[in-house]
């Protein structure tokens, strides 16, 4: 069990032991980078095909099934198409910024993966300010979107970029606020320590953050904010093709467009990996009897499950209007995350001294978060007229 669990770590050390001592630390870093790029590059290819197939099934059609067995080679065909397309730069565009924008989007997102523990002893950097580092490199995506929209010298691009930035700023607030309870109760910004704090089993079931009231509420708030942050449906207004063509991507073609596409999916992967780490116990197995499974396997099963939820949501929920989008963030998600912060505090202090019964603690937490949910949910549409049925009873 232990061998399989640590197989990648052992493989890396075996490779390093074959090399002379001087270059070992450098090669170690390069190996980490190659592993992350290979794994998430493959994930990108697989997710695009699975997403198209899943969406196809939801919409009562087959999805891509022509290239390769069951259409599995479709990503390869797409890649070749993208690479061989002509790269068109508008005449009036700011050439340098137009060229840099896709890079500024894609490169920092790769950095975000470096702090995430993918398995036992399997994180590239064990950084003390890991969560902060993650959000810091994530902040570059707003800049990239602005650069893309502004440098194209196209009204649609500019409107798309403005929408995207307003959306990203608004949803970054609930995203960060939803992670704060986890940081407070784990007592660390280090992602390895946060995973450690979720170890152990009670009655054979893991003690993940999602199994506490604040973690449960926080997980869903985090996922919603993450959907918006990675510009996915139902929050894909920046690219609302029926209104503003393709938003900030309008003037991009060929490989640069592919890089934007890649960056968007990588952002989704990064934030999904973070949600697994923060709320779903990272690489810990869900049940004690399943502990024989390799840690990286557990991590990627949870990862795939959340990606599947994202695909499902994309296929089923219609796109929001822009004022609804901003109101939803500022009037619903932000107050709820603040209430959730209070719930986490109450949860923490009732466990220390009072020695309250577990079910009573759950009741107190529910009594705090459920009325807030109902109240803020109702307040989102205060003047909704009662529906009048003209031609029906």
């Amino acid at each position, binding site marked *: 069990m232990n061998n399989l669990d640590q197989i990648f770590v052992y493989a890396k050390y075996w490779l390093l032991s074959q090399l002379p001592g001087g270059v070992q630390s450098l090669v170690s870093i390069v190996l980490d980078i190659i592993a992350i790029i290979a794994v998430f590059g493959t994930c990108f290819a697989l997710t695009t095909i699975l997403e198209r197939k899943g969406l196809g099934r939801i919409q009562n059609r087959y999805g891509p099934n022509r290239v390769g067995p069951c259409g599995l080679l479709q990503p390869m065909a797409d890649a070749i198409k993208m690479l061989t397309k002509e790269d068109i730069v508008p005449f009036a565009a700011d050439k340098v910024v137009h060229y840099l924008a896709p890079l500024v989007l894609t490169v920092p997102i790769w950095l975000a993966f470096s702090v995430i523990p993918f398995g036992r002893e399997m994180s590239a950097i064990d*950084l003390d300010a890991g969560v*902060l580092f993650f959000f810091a490199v994530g*902040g570059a995506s707003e800049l990239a979107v602005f650069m893309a929209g502004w440098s194209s010298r196209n009204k649609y691009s500019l409107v798309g970029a403005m929408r995207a930035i307003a959306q990203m700023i608004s949803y970054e607030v609930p995203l960060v606020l939803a992670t704060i309870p986890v940081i407070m109760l784990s007592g660390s910004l280090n992602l390895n320590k946060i995973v450690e704090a979720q170890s152990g089993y009670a009655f054979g079931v893991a003690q993940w953050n999602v199994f506490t009231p604040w973690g449960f509420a926080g997980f869903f708030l985090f996922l919603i904010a993450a959907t918006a942050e990675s510009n996915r449906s139902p929050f894909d207004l920046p690219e609302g093709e029926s209104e503003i063509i393709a938003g900030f991507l309008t003037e991009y073609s060929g490989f640069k467009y592919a890089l934007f596409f890649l960056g968007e999916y990588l952002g989704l992967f990064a934030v999904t990996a973070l949600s697994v780490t923060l709320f779903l116990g990272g690489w810990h197995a869900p049940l004690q009897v399943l502990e024989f499974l390799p840690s990286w396997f557990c991590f990627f099963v949870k990862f795939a499950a959340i990606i599947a939820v994202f695909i499902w949501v994309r296929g089923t929920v219609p796109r929001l209007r822009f004022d609804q989008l901003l109101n939803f963030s500022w009037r619903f998600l932000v107050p709820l995350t603040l209430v959730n912060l209070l719930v986490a505090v109450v949860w923490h202090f009732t466990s220390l001294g009072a020695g309250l019964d577990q079910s009573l603690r759950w009741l107190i937490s529910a009594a705090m978060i459920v009325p807030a949910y109902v109240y803020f949910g109702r307040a989102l549409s205060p003047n909704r007229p009662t529906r009048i049925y003209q031609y029906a009873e």
Partner: protein
Amino acid sequence: MSASDIIFYIFAALTLVCGILVVANPVSRNPVTSAMFLVLTIISMSGLFVLLHAFFLAAVQILVYAGAVIVLFLFVIMLLDLKEEQRRHVNRVVAALSVIVVMVIAAAIIWTIWQTKLGDGLDSAHLEGSLRAVGHLVFGKYILPFEILSLVLLVAMVGVILLSKKELK
């Protein structure tokens, strides 16, 4: 000269050069270009923080300045369309005055640094800008300035909301 020294000089030079390009770009007088160079300045400054092992400060520097503040700058630039800024000629008197002011401030700073008796510097154990130490300082010793700062920000926020309301009730 060790590797970290070389990296320090690279980042320091980048900070200074990009900082100059923010205010006095000979090629373009476009405000967006200035903002882009400001981003580079901030990133190279956070590189300096990393060299001091202050990862927390480096992350916060990028998160707050490159992530939030710059984006707000760009938002304003985008909304206002500052074409006039590009066309406006440099006022000679103002330019001369500002050069004098900058030189006086620079002289004051250099003189202060000259007068300060620098110690041997901290050993690497104390150099570590650990999160816990920063937190203890901010919420312990410097709690009053911290609270005053947050109050100032709150006042600014309320003011902006008041200004942006079209009619006051």
